[in-house]
């Protein structure tokens, strides 16, 4: 789509949406949201970017192949599940720590890591499908 307004706005829109998707991912445990929804938002952000500026721009912006992102997501999701092995509790048991950083209590957990994995899998897989479809015959 070659409208000037869309092309100009798209990068900002994409950046905002990706930021929002991270917000949705992180707040997911207590408010509506989570890795799956966050991932889908990020995908639509990338789709907008792709429609506006072409797939080459998206691939450059992603740096990694989207399938590699997906695989990495699955990897850290597995890792999050396996962490429990060091605490002698069953696979996938949620583990929590709440370190105080700059005076703020920040709850971190293996569950959050797992959700991040879900996020990356969704982003990577669907983006790679969309990009491949969009690529047409030339790429």
């Amino acid at each position, binding site marked *: 789509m070659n409208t000037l307004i869309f092309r100009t706005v798209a990068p900002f829109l994409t950046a905002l949406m990706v930021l929002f998707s991270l917000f*949705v991912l992180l707040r*997911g*445990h*207590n*408010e*509506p*949201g*989570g*890795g*799956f*929804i966050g991932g*889908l*938002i990020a*995908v*639509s952000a990338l*789709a907008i970017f792709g*429609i506006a500026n072409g797939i080459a721009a998206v691939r450059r912006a992603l740096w990694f192949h989207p*399938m590699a992102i*997906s*695989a990495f*997501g*699955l990897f850290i*999701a*597995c890792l999050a*599940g396996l962490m429990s092995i060091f605490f002698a509790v069953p*696979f*996938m048991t*949620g583990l*929590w720590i709440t370190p105080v950083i700059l005076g703020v209590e920040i*709850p971190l*957990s293996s*569950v959050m890591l*797992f*959700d991040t*994995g*879900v996020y990356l*899998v*969704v982003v*990577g*897989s*669907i983006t*790679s*499908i*969309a990009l*491949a*479809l*969009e690529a*047409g*015959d030339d790429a």
Partner: protein
Amino acid sequence: MTGTMGFTLLAFCLPFIGAFVAPFLTRLLGHNAAWPLALIPFAVFLHFLGFNADIADGRIVTGGYMWVPSYNVSFSWLIDGLSLTFLLLISGIGTLIMLYAGGYLKGHPQQGRFFSFILMFMGAMLGLVASDSFLMLFVFWELTSITSFLLIGFDHAREASRRAALQALIVTGGGGLFLLAGLLLLWDVTDVTQFSLLMSFGPELRASPFYLAILFLMLGGAFTKSAQFPFHFWLPNAMEAPTPVSAYLHSATMVKAGVYLLMRLNPVMGGTPAWETILPAIGGLTLLVGAVLAIRQTDLKLMLAYTTVASLGLLVMLTGFGSEHAIAAAALYLVAHSLFKGALFMVAGLIDHETGTRDVTKLGGLRRAMPITFLAALLAALSMGGLPPFFGFLAKEEIYAALAGGNARAIAFTTTAVLGNALMFAVAFAVALKPFLGTAVATPKRAHEGPALLWIGPLLLAVKGLAIGVFSGLAHVLLTAPLASAIAGTPQTITISAVPHMGIALYLSLLTVAIGVFVFLKLDAARAAADRLIEDIGWGPDRGFDQAMRGLVRMATRVTRLTQPGLMEIYVTATFVVVALALLVPPAVYGEWPRAPVWPADMPFHELAVMALAALGIVAVLMASNRLTAIVALGIQGFCVAMLFLLFGAPDLAFTQFMIETLSVVILALAMTRLKLTPRDHRPLREKIPDAVIATACGVGFALYLLRVTQGRFDSALTDFFNLYSKTIAHGANVVNVIIVDFRGTDTLGEIAVVMVTGLAILSLIRIRKGRRA
């Protein structure tokens, strides 16, 4: 005791560890890696030798670890006379084979891989013969098939190797499936999963209505593995493998696994008319077929391979014959055969390695050039021919003593044994004498004695055959009597010695030797006669195997064409027809249609509006003038559903639905442009109607299904549980998310794996299309 158990476990793991380090060691040391690697089987040999005193006293050693306690599956071993004999043969001959392989494949670029494969096989074979648990036996059984596949196909650049490897895998691996079914039936009938516990179930098993089924399944496993007629064809073809493999797998160890299984089952399944008919009959037939086919060959390895088939037939025949004498004979012959056949195979390989040919008609006069090889060959052949004072003589005497009798059955089997043995006698000396005697013949390579690595193995095995024959008393106490006891299931003693004593056995032996010498002298005529016989028969199981494989491929092609026509239209139609049937048929059959829903009286305006909008979206889809509009209009309907979710308190679901709708519109549009569809659907109405019917049926079906589900009684136990514990246990207020990532996290892990694999699949599908066009 636990210390010993740990060491035993280590002994089972050691070959696999060796298989892992072998390639690195070979890169470091070249062919000399054989020396340190041979220490592995040697250590295993020494470890199991330590059990000898216990076993000789008539005890059995069991041990192991629980594996899946809930199914009573364990990793456990049973060491009695039978398994110990096999363990010692496998590790002992294995030691020599490692050295031999070091010399034989010297300088081969993939020697490390070869060492690795053969050690893996060794580990599998050790596990097989020591398995107490049924499942472990099966796992190791199939592992030997797989490793043998790798070894036969080692020279994978040649088509003959690949075919032989595949054939061996299909025949023996397929037989393994019979074994699995048999073991499961055995488990079902007796309720035990271990051989050590099975031994007391003999009477129940023989009386069970499933006895015949179990017997046939077990025989299916044993006969394919041990190359009994008509499954014998894979064994000669397996001679495509490098000679160390032939010497090890296809004479001394793997092919005996089937015999091992029969011997293991003899105490609980033997003694029935079926057992004592099928086993000797098939065994005897295999003996004769193998011996005749052996005479026909001129290739040293193939001659030996067919005599191996014959020997295996003899062993099966003896195991099923049904007398204690026959069991003792089987025990003796089993050990004797492993020793002399292993040695002769290595001799054949040695001749091939040093002269460049193993065609017996093109060899002669090697006795000066290769004196040590000649000595080893001669000693092994004397044992194979059954001449005193060699071990083979003891075995043959015992065989004749066991078989000879007055009734028709005994006479028939005695004749079979004499004929088979006589032909094998001729082949033994054809292999051991023809290449060495006579005038020297020019060979592709100038013949000279091979390196120590190559002759040490055959010489040691051959000498052992002599030693056991001479010191038979000691050997019986330590090895063969416990072996026979384990096969029979009751304590046995063996007394036969190398000193000939008058009797029917000796006369039969003399007859055998006489016929053998006669055939040996007339070998060329015998070969021509056997050739004619086989050519007159024409069709054989080997060709049958090819025909079966071709038929299988043709059938697979036909079935694939039928079920996978490659037209997306057909796939999609089929999918939705099945969905519609699944939704509509069960309620129609069981009469469980939903009641008509009650329309709420005070429906708020905004809810009504959203629903109307959704309905409008559907109308828009149907009325759309081109496809792109239709896709976007579909989005309207989806968004309205998402709104409904939001209104009824499911923000997470609504959120997801919004995103999914957006993305599916984008992806559908992209797919449409990729497929280069025309903007409009130009089909005539009569082609659209079937699709419309299917779509309506699916929609109505889903609506009715959902109505029915919501009319059922709602069990709130799960809801209560998650609401109660979400915050307290999982530290999360959003129950939906907590379920996804914590309570049911393992499900999610599976789902994201599916998402990723689906992504990969779609990606590769798109790429394939690209490749084709380019």
